[in-house]
Every structure is written in structure tokens, then in C-alpha cells.
């Protein structure tokens, strides 16, 4: 696509909305990992999740990560990819100790056996995940919908469409339950931070 057309699309974008959503995305994405600083608000290099979002926006504007609307029409999705890629880069950076990564699913091939260190980390992560899971349950106890949501997470289901399908809710209800969960955002973030040393 011609540069002037891309410029026109960038100028027409709702940057306030995009920035809020992207920052929200970066915050929760960063929460998934255990950072050496001890906080998902303090990433390697003195960055914050807000910085990650703003840097992604700047990369699109400056052309460092050029947006091709023909290939990827959704600008917000393109920006999320940049945030994912940049956070992944930080995770792999020398400044970050990889062994302290937050619990994350890793699938071993049949022929592949985790080494003793990986087994120990997996064991620790499992214990941590159980602890967070239990506290999450205490947090949502009594709210039937949030409890149902937790059961969905236990089953590995996290997309509103899939949740709606499994629970018999409609997508709108799944999104409303998400709003209820957001009202506990600060508590939720504190809970996820339990994994930090």
C-alpha cells in the first residue's frame, strides 16, 4: 500500500482508544511472567508496560515495525504483535533470568525428557499455580459466574466464544463476567504477583 494511504489510515486511527487497550494488554501480558525486578511494572531496562505500549505505537509511526494494512487490516492486532514480540525479547534478554519465568504450559515431545532443573522449575511452578488458583477461588467465592469462569480456565478455555459455548452463556454475558472480574483488577493483579520473589 502507498505510504500516503498508510499515513492517512494512521492519522484517522483512534489513538486514545488504541493506547488504552494496548496498555491494558501489555500490563496483563507482563503479569504472566516473573520478572527479575520483582514486579511486572518494572521490566528490564527500566521499562514499564505503558512504555511497551507507547514504544509499539512509536515503532509503527516511525516505520521500524511498518504496518501493512493490505496484509493485516487490524492496526490494534498489529500493535499487539509488536508488544508480544518486544516482551518476548525482554524475556530472552540477558537482563532477565529465564529460570524465573511464570508458570506456563510447555509441551514436551514424546522423545523429549525435561532435565532435572526443568523438572524442579516445573514442580515449583505447579505449586505456585495451585496457590494462585486457590486464592483466585477465594476471591471469587460466592459469585457463581466467576466460579464457572474459573472452571473454564481449569479446562484451558479462555476465549469468550468458547466460554459461551461451554457454559451456555452468550458472548455478551461472557464479556459482562469479564467486566465483573475487572472490578477486582487491582486484587487480581496483586494475586498474580504472588509468583514474584
Amino acid at each position, binding site marked *: 500500500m502507498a505510504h500516503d494511504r498508510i499515513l492517512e489510515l494512521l492519522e484517522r486511527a483512534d489513538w486514545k482508544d488504541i493506547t488504552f487497550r494496548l*496498555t491494558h494488554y501489555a500490563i496483563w501480558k507482563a503479569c504472566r511472567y516473573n520478572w527479575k525486578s520483582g514486579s511486572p511494572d518494572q521490566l528490564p531496562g527500566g521499562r514499564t508496560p505503558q512504555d511497551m505500549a507507547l514504544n509499539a505505537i512509536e515503532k509503527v509511526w516511525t516505520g521500524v515495525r511498518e504496518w501493512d494494512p493490505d496484509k493485516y487490516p487490524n492496526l490494534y492486532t498489529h500493535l499487539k504483535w509488536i508488544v508480544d514480540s518486544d516482551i518476548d525479547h525482554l524475556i530472552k534478554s540477558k537482563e532477565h533470568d529465564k529460570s524465573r519465568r511464570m508458570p506456563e504450559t510447555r509441551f514436551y515431545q514424546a522423545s523429549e525428557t525435561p532435565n532435572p532443573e526443568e523438572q524442579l522449575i516445573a514442580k515449583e511452578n505447579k505449586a505456585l*499455580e495451585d496457590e494462585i488458583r486457590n486464592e483466585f477461588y477465594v476471591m471469587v467465592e460466592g459469585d457463581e459466574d466467576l466460579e464457572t469462569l474459573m472452571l473454564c480456565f481449569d479446562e484451558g478455555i479462555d476465549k469468550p466464544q468458547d466460554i459461551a459455548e461451554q457454559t451456555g452463556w452468550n458472548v455478551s454475558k461472557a464479556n459482562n463476567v469479564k467486566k465483573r472480574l475487572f472490578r477486582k483488577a487491582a486484587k487480581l493483579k496483586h494475586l498474580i504477583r504472588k509468583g514474584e520473589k
Partner: protein
Amino acid sequence: MKKKGFIECLTDFVSDSEGLTQEEIATELEELGIDTAELAAAADEIAKRGSAVRRLAWRDRAKERRAEVKELLKSKQIGRTALELKDKVREILMGSYGQGAFSYAEAYFRKRDSFSENDLESLIEDLEDLNLLEEEKDG
């Protein structure tokens, strides 16, 4: 396919803002201690700066292209009878008739080695048919 873990599901679910309004996201960000006015201002500043830089880069590219086109015009054989038409075409190639006419004419010129009066007339007719010479009139 193996299922995702609890933490992955939880963080993926909450990081997805679909179905939430901008106000709801802003409220959540404020609750997490983020100054949303400051955040929006920072993004606005990046957009303004980026827009200015991109416009400048575009003007530089257009300037370079026009210089190339001038050279192209010089190097082509154009019949003496076509000189008046050549003046009009030069104006088009200098951008006086807008980007659309400029791009079309540039492509037209690059395809040929020499131009007759008929070729130049044909080019201007094409541009008129495509309403690409309207931009000047519309301002």
C-alpha cells in the same frame, strides 16, 4: 491439542479488551495507578511527531521523484510540435495537478522511450477521463 494452564488462561482472558468500552478500560487503568490523561497525551504526542516525520519523508520522496521525472523528460525525444503539450505535462509531473495525475503520468513516461504529439494528447485525455486533472480546479 493440550490444554493451556490456569495462569495462561486467566491472563489471556483479562488481557483481551474486546467487549469493553474505552471508559471501562480507562477506569481499570486508573485503578491500577495509571494516569490515563498523561498516557493519552503521550500517545497523541507520538502520533503528531510521527505524522510530521512521515509527511516530511513523503515530501522528500516526491521531490526526488520529480527530479527523476525532469531528467526523464529531458532524455526523451519529443517532437517540436508537441512543445505546448509538453509544458502542460511538465506541470502535471511537477505535482501541480495532484498526486494521482503525477503518479499516472510518471508511469506513462517510464514505459516509453520517445513521445509524439499524439502520445502527449493521449496522456492528457487519459488523465481527463480519470478525472485526475480535476484536483487543480478543486483546489
